[in-house]
């Protein structure tokens, strides 16, 4: 388990500190949480990323109190909440879908938490309207959930969670059930709102683009443990483990030989990141945008296919030894190539990660 602490959370914001300390949770033989330790700085948004079954949702639910861990402690704002029941933890939670109460209007849904706290009708209504405006749905207050679109429902869910001014905001894959375009717009809104209000936030997702775009820091989980937690750029450029290197971003796998801490690939010597395998035969992990292509008559590599993605292209290339690499090029360069074009392949010499062959 590696924790990178080189990224500092934003300072000068409201919000409380959260600590998940050495959590263990097993279901029979399955270790959903295997010694997870995670700390969130006040006001920070941490994105918890990982494949299904890695334990990220279990971690979130443990923090919420919906799923008690077997051992470990949960501390929020200096208070030990491990044995506190879920309805006394003062947290706001947004679920993946279907969490709005269908028998209440949007406004009543948002005001529900306030009603439970005994806030009087007028103040409740005022605060609910404030929240509706914050998420841009003032006009939909009187509608029922079945009359709202998926994106609108999630905004109401967010408003409802924030209405009670929670200590921590918990989001369990809130965008996974939405269409791609809605997802992207809502993602940005959530971030904007979170920065404005400053609540410490834990955001669980399996979509790495989402995690990298949203988080102050991103934590990658696998098999119940935290592989690495760092600001997005660091996670992307300097992965600490093979899992992180493969899970985050697209990767090419190229075999090569290591000696003296460098690896020989396509005729170049490229340095390796700390923690890589070697010496001897290893598999290097190379990002498509690090692969450069130059059309050259007589070159030994040639193009297999070109995928046009709007602002860029992904080009599949066959190397002389038969290995396939995917390179990322600008749209102009990519459209100039076609299957069969001979190209010279070079790799950007910044450090890369290697795993045992």
């Amino acid at each position, binding site marked *: 388990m590696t924790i990178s602490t080189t990224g500092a959370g934003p300072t000068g914001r409201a919000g409380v500190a959260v600590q998940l300390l050495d959590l263990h949770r097993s279901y029979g033989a399955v270790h959903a949480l295997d010694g997870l330790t995670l700390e969130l700085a006040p006001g920070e948004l941490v994105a918890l990323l990982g494949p299904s079954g890695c334990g990220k949702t279990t971690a979130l639910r443990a923090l*919420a109190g919906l799923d008690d861990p077997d051992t470990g402690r949960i501390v929020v704002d200096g208070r030990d909440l491990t044995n506190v029941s879920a309805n006394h933890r003062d947290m706001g939670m947004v679920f993946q879908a279907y969490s709005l109460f269908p028998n209440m209007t949007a406004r009543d849904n948002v005001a529900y938490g306030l009603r439970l706290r005994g806030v009087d009708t007028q103040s409740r209504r005022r605060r609910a309207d404030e929240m509706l405006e914050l998420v841009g749905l003032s006009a939909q207050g009187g509608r029922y959930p079945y009359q709202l679109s998926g994106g609108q429902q999630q905004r109401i869910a967010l408003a409802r969670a924030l209405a*009670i001014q929670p200590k921590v905001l918990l989001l369990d894959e809130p965008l996974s059930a939405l269409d791609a375009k809605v997802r992207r717009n809502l993602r940005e809104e959530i971030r904007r709102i979170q920065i404005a209000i400053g609540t410490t936030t834990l955001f669980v997702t399996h979509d790495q683009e989402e995690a990298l775009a949203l988080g102050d820091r991103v934590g990658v989980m696998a098999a119940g443990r935290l592989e690495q937690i760092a600001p997005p750029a660091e996670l992307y450029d300097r992965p600490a483990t093979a899992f992180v290197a493969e899970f985050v971003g697209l990767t090419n796998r190229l075999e090569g030989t290591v000696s003296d801490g460098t690896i020989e690939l396509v005729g170049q010597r490229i340095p390796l990141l700390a923690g890589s395998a070697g010496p001897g035969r290893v598999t290097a992990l190379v990002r498509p945008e690090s692969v450069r292509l130059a059309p050259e008559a007589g070159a030994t590599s040639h193009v297999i296919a070109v995928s046009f993605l709007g602002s860029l292209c992904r080009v599949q290339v066959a190397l002389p030894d038969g290995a396939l690499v995917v390179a990322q090029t600008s749209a102009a360069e990519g459209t100039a190539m076609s299957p069969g074009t001979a190209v010279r392949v070079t790799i950007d010499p910044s450090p890369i990660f290697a795993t045992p062959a």
Partner: protein
Amino acid sequence: MTASTPASEQRPGADPALGGAGSQRRRWAGTYLPLVPFFFYVTLFLLLPTFIVLVGAFQAADGSPSLESITTVVTGPRFLAAFGRSVQLSLVSALAGAVLGGLFAWAVSSGGPGGRLRQISVAASGVLAQFGGVMLAFAFLATFGFNGLVTLLLRDSVGIDLSKDNTWIYGMTGLTIVYTYFQIPLMVIVFLPALDGLRKEWWEASTSLGGSSWTYWRNVAGPILAPSFLGAVLLLFANAFSAYATAFSLVSQGSPIVPLQIGEAMSGEVVQGQANIGKALALGMIIVVVIVMGLYAFLQRRASRWLR
């Protein structure tokens, strides 16, 4: 489904290239002819008898059109009392069955759809709900009758002798207890799907917002289940109202409820030529049940609107 319909399912005659009016008719026949056996069968054995009942209700004993039969029923104290008792019996057993069955359904559903207890309960409920009236009556006599298990146990152990004033079993009290028995499994069958519709996210959202069990049921689950619950009560009411066999087996004297009076009129036991009184009673029963089922259908639609 977004699959496009093949040409054969479009409106008959939509494609003129496939021939003129002759093929139109042929295609229409091809589509609807296979359904004729069903409609014919149902008309002969369901709609025709219903029609006979409706027509007969508006006839006098000799067959001439008149309101005499209906008037006799509506003004006769015997008949009105029977309707009253039928309504009371059905209402009480429906409410009791709904509450007990609802609780049981909730207890069984919390284990998830795959749970062993749930599967057994559902299968058992399916059988018990069809537990014919005669068998149920005897089951109750074996329990609470003169030589029934509970009667004997109570007599030998606690000294309470139920057999001393045994008529309670054969009267309205006994009927109500027996009716409740078969209402419970029916309630389980009807209400479980509604309980399944309660999403776990609603409970979790309510809890994380600070709610307790009580606030959840009062503000979320209760209102959501209310239409389905009321609908189930109505269904149970209609079920009890139309039941004949159980009462026939248990009641030895007289015909206190409407179904028994219809049976009586049919077998001509009391007065000859009462056949059309039976039809008038049947008409009254149809009206009650149709109103109840209409309300049930309305509530079902209302319940599903929210849960879309």
